[in-house]
């Protein structure tokens, strides 16, 4: 088998050195009952050509985003990733190294993590960021647990316009730990939700997303003040990180913890994963942070170098007292993020954000020009919500049949809420051309 270097001759020789008659001998500690001879009931080995053909065939059964006018967002966004990014993350030295526990021979990984942490802190307007979490939703749940540790309280209040999956992940983790969660009902764009009224003395944190599930931009300042007044923390959630090229960062609006989904920068859609969770906070809370932190130090010669640090927060040192159980995170996705953002730079990143916004504004205009279609948002970035004259799910299906992937029915992730049935959440990024928008509008007219 091509991946296995040992030959039969090698095996014989090695068994001799070991002093074992056979390989079975080495498995003698396995209880009789559990030993299997013969192969598991699965296909046998295949050559590279065969595997490639089979998987290529499977992949071809999907409609890939690059093959149609594409407007789906909802927490994952299609952006153009420069070819340099994918080339660099495939460098053996990045792709096939482990967590940098031996800093003398992993400075490459450590330095980009330090760069990543700095970039995330700058984007979010916070003091410090960690070296990544699994994704935005788990980062959000970890933020809530961190708020509990900081405030020594147990109750989280979730905005109703938090991404429904994020809400479910937070609820799942908190409730498994026996901690109560209060989640509001979704308020549509335009309507403001009175989350401040829910902040009580036992509130550990308020979790608010901007842009919201519906694409609306939210003012966090008042919420931050109210939360702080009650000794609670404000956790801001940013599902589309590109928005921070154009939109006031939560750090400037009083957030105590900012979590986000970093997929938009450097990472593909990948049907939902792997993505990269962003986690930033204030310096004073550093020792309560989950996940890995890379720090600057010097070596024996006094040269600058980087190491994983403050690991007394982590499971491998603190075990049941750790701030989280996370170990493997999203290192390589963080590298892709860091490289793409380095390529963009200050000017490129802001321009990218302007293009996204401009495309969304153009699309919103075009769509609201369609009879019976209403744009609900006042202020948005690259995603917004429209009300259709009929079921959004039916419309999206019909659009798909005609070769347009036209958005996310608001009700798909919040089932059983009739007020959402006709709402369609639509995103537009730099990848969309005028032609894409024209096709969308034309096809929508057909199916309405």
């Amino acid at each position, binding site marked *: 088998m091509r991946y296995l270097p040992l030959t039969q001759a090698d*095996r014989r020789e090695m068994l001799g*050195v070991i002093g074992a008659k056979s390989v079975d001998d080495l498995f003698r500690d396995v209880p009789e009952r559990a030993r299997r001879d013969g192969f598991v009931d699965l296909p046998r080995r295949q050559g590279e050509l065969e595997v490639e053909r089979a998987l290529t065939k499977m992949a071809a059964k999907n409609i890939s985003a690059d*093959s149609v006018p594409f407007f789906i967002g909802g927490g994952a966004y299609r952006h153009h990733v420069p070819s340099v990014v994918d080339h660099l993350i495939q460098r053996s030295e990045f*792709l096939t190294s482990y967590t940098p526990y031996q800093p003398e021979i992993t400075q*490459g990984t450590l330095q980009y993590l330090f760069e990543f942490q700095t970039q995330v802190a700058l984007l979010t307007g916070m003091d410090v960021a960690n070296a990544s979490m699994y994704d935005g939703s788990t980062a959000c749940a970890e933020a809530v647990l961190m708020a509990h540790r900081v405030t020594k309280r147990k109750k989280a209040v979730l905005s109703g316009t938090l991404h429904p999956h994020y809400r479910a992940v937070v609820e*799942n983790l908190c409730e498994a730990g026996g901690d109560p969660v209060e989640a509001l009902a979704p308020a549509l764009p335009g309507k403001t939700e009175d989350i401040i009224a829910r902040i009580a003395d036992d509130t550990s944190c308020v979790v608010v997303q901007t842009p919201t599930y519906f694409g609306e931009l939210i003012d966090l300042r008042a919420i931050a003040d109210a939360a702080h007044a009650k000794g609670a923390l404000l956790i801001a959630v940013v599902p589309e990180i590109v928005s921070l090229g154009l939109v006031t960062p939560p750090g400037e609006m009083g957030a105590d913890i900012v979590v986000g989904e970093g997929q938009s920068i450097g990472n593909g859609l990948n049907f939902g994963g792997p993505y990269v969770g962003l986690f930033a906070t204030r310096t004073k809370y550093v020792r309560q942070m989950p996940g890995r932190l890379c720090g600057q130090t010097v070596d024996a010669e006094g040269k600058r170098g980087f190491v994983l640090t403050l690991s007394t927060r982590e499971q491998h040192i603190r075990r049941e007292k750790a701030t989280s159980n996370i170990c493997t995170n999203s290192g390589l996705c963080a590298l892709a993020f860091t490289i793409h953002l380095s390529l963009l730079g200050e000017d490129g990143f802001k321009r990218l954000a302007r293009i996204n916004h401009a495309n969304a504004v153009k699309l919103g205009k075009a769509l609201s020009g369609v009879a019976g279609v209403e744009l609900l948002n006042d202020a948005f970035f690259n995603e917004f919500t429209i009300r259709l004259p009929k079921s959004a799910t039916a419309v999206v299906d019909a659009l798909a049949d005609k070769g347009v992937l036209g958005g996310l029915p608001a009700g798909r992730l919040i*089932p059983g809420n009739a007020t959402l049935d006709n709402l369609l959440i639509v995103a537009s990024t730099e990848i969309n051309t005028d032609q894409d928008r024209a096709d969308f509008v034309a096809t929508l007219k057909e199916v309405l």
Partner: protein
Amino acid sequence: MSGMNNQGRPTAAGEASSSSFETYTGNKGLRLEEPLIFELDNPGATGVDLDEPEGYEPKLGAFERKARIGLPGMSEPDVMRHYVRLSRKNYSIDAGLYPLGSCTMKHNPRLNEKMARLPGFADVHPLQPQKTVQGALELMDTLAHWLKELTGMPAVAMSPKAGAHGELCGMMAIRAALVARGEGDKRTRILVPESAHGTNPATAALLQYKVDAIPATADGRVDLAAFKAKLGPDVAAIMLTNPNTCGLFERDIIEIADAVHAAGAYFYCDGANFNAIVGRVRPGDLGVDAMHINLHKTFSTPHGGGGPGAGPVVLSEALAPFAPLPYVVHGADGFRLVETVGEAKADGSHPFGRMVAFHGQMGMFVRAMAYMMSHGSDGLRQVAEDAVLNANYVLASLKDYLSAPFEGPCMHEALFDDRFLKGTGVETLDFAKAMIDEGYHPMTMYFPLVVHGALLIEPTETESKHTLDQFIGTLKHLAQAAKGNDKSRFTGAPHFAPRHRLDETLAARNPVLRWQAETPKQAAE
């Protein structure tokens, strides 16, 4: 052309001179220093060409970001060079043996990378209409089938993002089953061997369980008597790693499982070491109720310097109904992704909730699938056998030079302790750092905690005998050097790496976690 470089002037070798002086640049030949991107900022430069949008009419309300963000400007060539130079400061499997015990650092086939990049997998949105992603759902379903067959378990939860996340998922399923039985509050204790990986107790703690440590026997396994003594009506589960973190198979595992079940508790198995038994032993035959599988270990998705990974969890009949959302079912009308509690109830299951947004690590699923199809059931069985053979070869070859706490045979990793260093003044850490000078990544150190100064070596099946022989020769040589009085070679190690030993104490005492305009550049660059 530079053809003229030795025009009429062939170089004669001349005298060697291993003089070591400081260079002007700080570089030493191909060993290149590199500043931070922020120190390379060239305002106005960019590596991406984008045109300003025409007819730009912002609809941002009061939320326009005004201030400078502080991102450095660089062209594409500068960015390329920066990260290539950084990469060259890393060790990697592709460059050499990476014998980290418990990490299963095996060869990562590039075929898997290629398959994961097929637009049909890589450029598909998780929330597309399901009829447009039937191939993606088919892949998840096929991978699930392989995992179930290989483990002999009836169900699998695919969404966990890594091993620790899988542990959390499995323990949540156990908790849900207990709650469903009305024993949720009654069972508050989790038994965890001392040798367990840190994520086990950390996971239990996340669920507010009390962690109760089980001692190990002199032969590195669970102390059966002590374990049984700890069993009781307040025990929710045992979290056991098998093969365990000493690289040994838990001989009494079936008896343990039976006892756990008799006590009304569940058996969580940490499957990080599945590579040792894949295709030969099915956890389902051992009485396991839940086990996570690190696709980034056993099934070779690259570690990527710390992730991403994937941690699907196989579940027993008893736990299957509580599997989290989403999951894939195969109906007449093709594949369906069950995303809501409503749909699940209709299927008669009771998902405990959701682990993560969307459906899990699709990118890793494709890689693992390509890896499994390439090996097949025959190749996978060979994987386990060669992994165990390689580890035992290392153990047998070194046990008289280093010191081994336990009798063989071992499974996929060979464990040594620091007795062989006694009196040398060389510590486990120093010994390991000296391996760096020899061109090797050190093995796992100081883990598991049950032996003193542990050195845990996992060669994996993708190392050749030739490679192992050179590695063994090196360790013998270093062990001799340590016993001789060549101490500075160890305490000063590494001598030849991009950096000498780094001051981790300083880093923790005075944390510098991000670049700041005023950060002193020091030696870098």
